[in-house]
């Protein structure tokens, strides 16, 4: 019987009157929810209860790295001194700059890069930044014919999208046995290639073993090699993108470095580059100065990719996380991330076509519908993997358990996979039944978009 009051059911219209502004500069009225604080609290607490988070159970979305987010990082990011205005002088924000500088150094060390900008506010923003840096590099070389960015068919969707936003034509090359086809790559790259974007291990969890050859081919074509950091968790402390020949990379701190995903964001997408590209980094960049830190504009900076300095509070958390783990913790992370994926896969009754995989794998639901299977897993109390992607696997179940799941949880998760895979189709199609909402009609949502309460009839 009891339901908290919905904001939309408690709207008030207030007329704009007695404003210090003349009427012609103001609107007439404003209509918004009007809830008391007790009602507000119950409403949002209820909404939280209808949301599955990492602390609710396993969350094995492939390439999303839904690992444990330590609350202590939240606490260190909430100290009063962290809340400064971005237009404060460098002299009066030495604490902020010092922390940013240290994080730049940590990330450079982990990635094997020479310098890192913290400005990009998300992974895709990092990709865009990286491609803009590549563009500026070619521009500086007077190399104006490079109009294409090459990506493999296993690339995350953001790779081609970022390249396209940056104005490039996207050339997609097919994979062979789940890896870059060197011949196809060789054929695709050349004088018109601005960059080759790759994630390694790729979205199948498979390591691009030929990475040295890939780097050589791309570099010979005069293009930088871009590393998509989404899957960096697999390699922490063991393989560094810079050492593999990558020239530009982004880091997803909300994946690899334990900052929470926040229901979709904010994250942060720092970008690392090798020495040749440092002069192109976004403006401003933090460096050491006499006894302190300063902001400067890199010589041929691409300019800004965020209005201010990016997602500062997220960066504090990433710093705290890396400091907590240290080298041994980072090594343990990649070890257990990879062990967990391999162990989980070994317990599944499903086919996993590509291997050896690292921190993630793509199982196939085969003759079942991957989405249906996922919906049934919801009923079993776990979050399902990413479904129906990459297309290279039929009815794909892209699964990344992360290092923070225990053997016991993985066994339960495997049980959920296997139980769902064993159900009658009818049951799968009618799932889920134990969730807040039952199966939601996506088609009618798209066909008849109702995107605000103003658009609702009820």
């Amino acid at each position, binding site marked *: 019987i009891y339901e908290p009051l919905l904001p939309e059911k408690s709207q008030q219209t207030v007329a704009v009157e007695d404003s210090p*502004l003349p009427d012609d500069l103001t609107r007439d009225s404003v209509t918004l929810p009007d809830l008391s604080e007790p009602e507000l609290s119950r409403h949002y607490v209820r909404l*939280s209860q209808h949301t599955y*988070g990492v602390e609710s159970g396993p969350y094995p979305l492939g390439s999303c790295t839904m690992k444990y987010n330590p609350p202590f990082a939240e606490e260190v990011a909430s100290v009063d001194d962290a809340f400064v205005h971005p237009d*404060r002088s460098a002299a009066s924000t030495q604490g*902020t700059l010092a922390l940013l500088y240290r994080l730049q150094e940590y990330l450079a060390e982990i990635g094997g890069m020479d310098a890192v900008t913290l400005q990009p506010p998300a992974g895709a923003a990092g990709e865009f930044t990286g491609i803009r840096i590549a563009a500026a590099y070619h521009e500086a070389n007077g190399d104006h014919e490079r109009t294409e960015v090459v990506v493999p068919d296993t690339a995350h969707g953001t790779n081609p999208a970022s390249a396209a936003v940056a104005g490039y034509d996207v050339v997609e090359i097919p994979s062979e046995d789940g890896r870059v086809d060197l011949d196809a790559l060789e054929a695709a790259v050349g004088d018109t290639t601005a960059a080759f974007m790759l994630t390694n291990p790729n979205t199948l969890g498979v390591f691009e073993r030929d990475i040295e050859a890939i780097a050589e081919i791309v570099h010979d074509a005069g293009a930088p090699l871009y590393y998509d950091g989404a899957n960096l968790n697999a390699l922490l402390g063991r393989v560094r993108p810079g050492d593999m020949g990558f020239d530009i990379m982004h880091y997803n701190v909300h994946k690899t470095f334990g900052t929470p995903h926040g229901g979709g964001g904010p994250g942060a997408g720092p970008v690392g580059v090798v020495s040749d590209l440092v002069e192109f980094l976004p403006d401003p960049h933090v460096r050491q100065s006499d006894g302190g830190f300063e902001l400067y504009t890199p010589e041929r900076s691409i300019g800004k990719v965020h209005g201010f300095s990016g997602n500062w509070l997220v960066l504090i958390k990433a710093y705290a996380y890396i400091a907590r783990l240290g080298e041994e913790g980072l090594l343990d992370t990649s070890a257990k991330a990879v062990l*967990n994926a391999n162990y989980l896969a070994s317990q599944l009754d499903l086919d996993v076509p590509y291997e050896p995989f690292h921190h993630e794998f793509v199982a196939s639901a085969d003759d079942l519908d991957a989405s249906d299977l996922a919906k049934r897993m919801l009923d079993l109390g776990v979050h399902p993997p990413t479904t129906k992607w990459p297309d290279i696997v039929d009815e794909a179940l892209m699964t990344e358990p992360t290092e923070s799941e225990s053997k016991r949880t993985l066994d339960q998760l495997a049980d959920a996979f296997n139980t769902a895979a064993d159900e009658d189709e009818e049951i799968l199609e009618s799932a889920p039944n134990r969730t807040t*909402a039952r199966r939601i009609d996506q088609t009618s949502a798209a066909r008849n978009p109702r995107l605000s309460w103003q658009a609702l009839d009820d």
Partner: protein
Amino acid sequence: MTGSPYVPHSAEETAAMLEAVGVDDVTELFDVPDPVRFEGDLDIDARSEPEIRTEIDALLSRNDDLTEFLGRGHYDHYVPSVVDRISARSEFLTSYTQYQPEVAQGFLQALFEYQSMLVELTGLPVANASMYDAATALGEAALFASRVRETSGSTVLVPEYVRDERVSVLENYGAGADITVERVPSAKGTVDTSALMGAANEDTLAVYAENPTTRGTIEPDLDAIGDVAHDNDALFVLGSDPVALSLLERPSDVGADVVVGDASVLGMPTSYGMGLGMFATREDFLRQVPGRLVGASEDDAGFRAFTLTLQTREQHIRRERATSNICTNQAWVALRTAMHVAALGPEGLLETANRMVSLASDVAERLDEIIGVRAPVDDRHHFREFVAHTDQPARAIVDDLAAQGFAIHAVGEHEVQVCVTETNEGSIDDFIAAFREVAQ
């Protein structure tokens, strides 16, 4: 501690798992050629929780303790504790994008509320679930304009008063689509409409204006700006924020086609520029909107339910033909903003907005009484902030005030900018006294 504190494996469990997988050592699972294996040591020491707390506290305490009278696109409004407390619940904080809506109804509903609030505030029927910040939302708006405009065109007209940083972001976004930015002169701190009319032509893709502007001025004739845009088949893109929108002319009423800006002025404290990009537009452009959209639907039991919708616009499906590359966004900030708006309610929000007008005018008036200061420089109504002329060099004023514990902007040789909200209101007397001391 010889590993990660966030890895739950006991030695026995690890052993059992290795056996199940069929290897002796985890390194065997890495299918990595030797030459690219990293055999060095990472120069990163592990520290304990309290050590890191102490370290970060000590580090951040190097930030001077200044009372900020700073604005220019990043504003401080008091965030009620209830927003901090409830948004910190781990279900909200640690969940992912709502690809499985059946277990994400709570977050989806919150984002739906956020969209709905923006729809009310802007008067535009479509608002997305967040961009990164005001500058990137403006960049997306330019790309959006190039997709939806009937004829081609490549220039975005941007008033002189807009921050260079914001323009730089816009230029980066525009570069790939060969979009260039042309600055339009201001008059009295707002758009010079006759200059704008002269600048606009068939190559004009979009006309951008802000209300309030970066200088804190309120645009006196937004209709005219919109008309210039529309007369040239260009989009009228308006920058604002939710506090201002509750009071100032409704964007839909002045012909705005897109509203961008920073919505995190509600929901977040000053956080070194971390933001929440608003993006709202007209219904007919719906399929070209960048970013996530939450829509209402029904579940199998016939109950109302929410889901991400029109995902075919997005990068994970449409790849290089997506309406944007955005994936990770600012969803959690949008949740906080929605909570903050709900906590204020329409009266509280409007009261705050009105106060931003009177505070700016009161403080300007008091500064104007100081010998060597003229404020405001612009003969306009103001919101939160204003530019003041100082006989002393602005740089010297700023430095001297910093020595007294206050931060303001220098925006010209002899121009400073001062921003007042309810969070620094209590320090106004001290600020004026300090200003009097340094201005002469």
